[in-house]
């Protein structure tokens, strides 16, 4: 392979004169996390509202929720970003459109909104599934106790549902971090964009992409581990994966050797 490896490239100053390439990648990481974080807040808020709406007895709320989810789920994220970034400023009244176009960091705000709404449809789906997975008696019991419909959600259904939903929500959050890379198409300088920029300046393709890949993996590991701890902390006693403490790896290994079966 006639490729010239140069791992020292990360410590060279980039053409902007102020940062090394390594610092630029870190800057990109910061924007990636920022975008994902704010998008996640939107996604969780709207997704919960829409998800709850889909489980209420109200026919119109259910229809609205279904339409919302179908709309945001069936258009590719990239196209949604383009709609918010290129189309929205043109179809709103001119004064608002001009204001949108002149907004500093427009690609960041656009990415947050687009990614947030896109993910909210997925979160809504999880919230609905989480609430529907609860025994029917829970809602009935809440109402029988004299709680109103919102109170039943607030004190009975949601505290259970959110805890059951944690694992799928974790993977949605990781998806949000990964999906924020789509925002490079509207000019957001997040991690993937920084790696691409580094490749264009230095032609050290594989070093740049390796660094970005490693950073994504590290983020992934941290989020997964953090969420696993949260899961354990709020686990519902008595449920599968509830309070029971996980045996140590040594114990698990011994059990496995003892019960070693031919796996399919």
């Amino acid at each position, binding site marked *: *392979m*006639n*490729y010239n490896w140069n791992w020292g490239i990360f410590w060279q100053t980039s053409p902007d004169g102020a940062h090394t390439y390594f610092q630029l990648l870190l800057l990109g990481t910061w924007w990636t996390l920022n975008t994902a974080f704010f998008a996640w807040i939107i996604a969780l808020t709207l997704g919960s509202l829409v998800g709850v709406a889909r489980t209420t007895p109200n026919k119109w709320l259910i229809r609205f929720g279904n339409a919302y989810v*179908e*709309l945001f*789920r*069936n*258009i*590719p*994220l*990239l*196209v*949604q970003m*383009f*709609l918010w970034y*290129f*189309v929205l400023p*043109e*179809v709103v009244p001119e004064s608002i459109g001009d204001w949108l176009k002149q907004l500093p960091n427009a690609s960041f705000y656009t990415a947050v909104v687009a990614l947030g709404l896109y993910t909210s449809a997925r979160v809504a789906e999880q919230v609905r599934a989480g609430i529907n997975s609860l025994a029917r008696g829970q809602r009935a019991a809440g109402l029988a106790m004299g709680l109103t419909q919102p109170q039943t959600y607030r004190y009975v259904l949601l505290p259970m549902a959110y805890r059951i939903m944690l694992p799928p929500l974790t993977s949605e959050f*990781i998806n949000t971090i*990964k*999906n*924020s*890379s*789509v925002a*490079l*198409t509207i000019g957001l300088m997040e991690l*993937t964009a920084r*790696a*691409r920029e580094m*490749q264009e300046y230095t032609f050290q*393709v*594989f070093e740049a*992409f390796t660094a*970005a*890949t490693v950073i*994504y*993996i590290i983020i*992934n590991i941290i989020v997964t581990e953090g969420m696993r701890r949260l899961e354990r902390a709020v686990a519902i006693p008595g449920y599968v994966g509830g309070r029971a403490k996980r045996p140590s790896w040594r114990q698990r290994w011994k059990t496995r050797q003892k019960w070693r079966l*031919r*796996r*399919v």
Partner: protein
Amino acid sequence: MFSTFDFGVIYRSLSYLFIDGMTFTVTLTAMAATLGLIWGTILALMRLSGFPPLVLFATGYVNLMRSVPLVLMIFWFYFLVPYIGQWITGSAAPIRVGAFMSSLITFSLFEAAFFSEIMRAGIQSIARGQMAAAQALGMNYRTTMSYIILPQAFRNMVPVLLTQTIILFQDTSLVYVLSITDFLGAASKVAQRDGRLVEMYLFAAAVYFIISLAASTAVRRLNRRIAIIR
């Protein structure tokens, strides 16, 4: 707002959008789904083999693919494939591969990770007795897998596999980052040439929406049908 909306630009570019663009998108989706499913099934079998090096390889592969954004993977393979080609064929310079080949390899390898998780769940959903029964009949591993386990696993997982394919169909729009003329790429090229961003992007969104909605509705119907049979 629609006073300046020019439907003509969509009408004039229909053949370019669908014959050039949509053909690329659909071919890429179909071929990547097929190759991804084959490679994904092999990965799932590796992971369930119980042979540590294969388990480790398959697990590592799936986890790697699932923790990196697709956009980054597209870039990776765009630059990596020529070098791999050079390495395999032993030629003097990196091999030039076309846009289609490059994206096909990317999506097949990327999607395989997701298909492998689905197939793994499918294989594990088959009762253990089936495996034992096949072995009792004197079938070896290969025959058992190809005649007993995999057909059932595949059948159980058809709705999930199809849903994943719809996601793949939407994801192929990301080849935009390599300036490839897929459906979105075609729409975007017309949009920029004629300065008609609003019309073209709204039209592209509508087309994606209709196709994906129709497909996912069909999958849901199929799901209900299969559920009754079982």
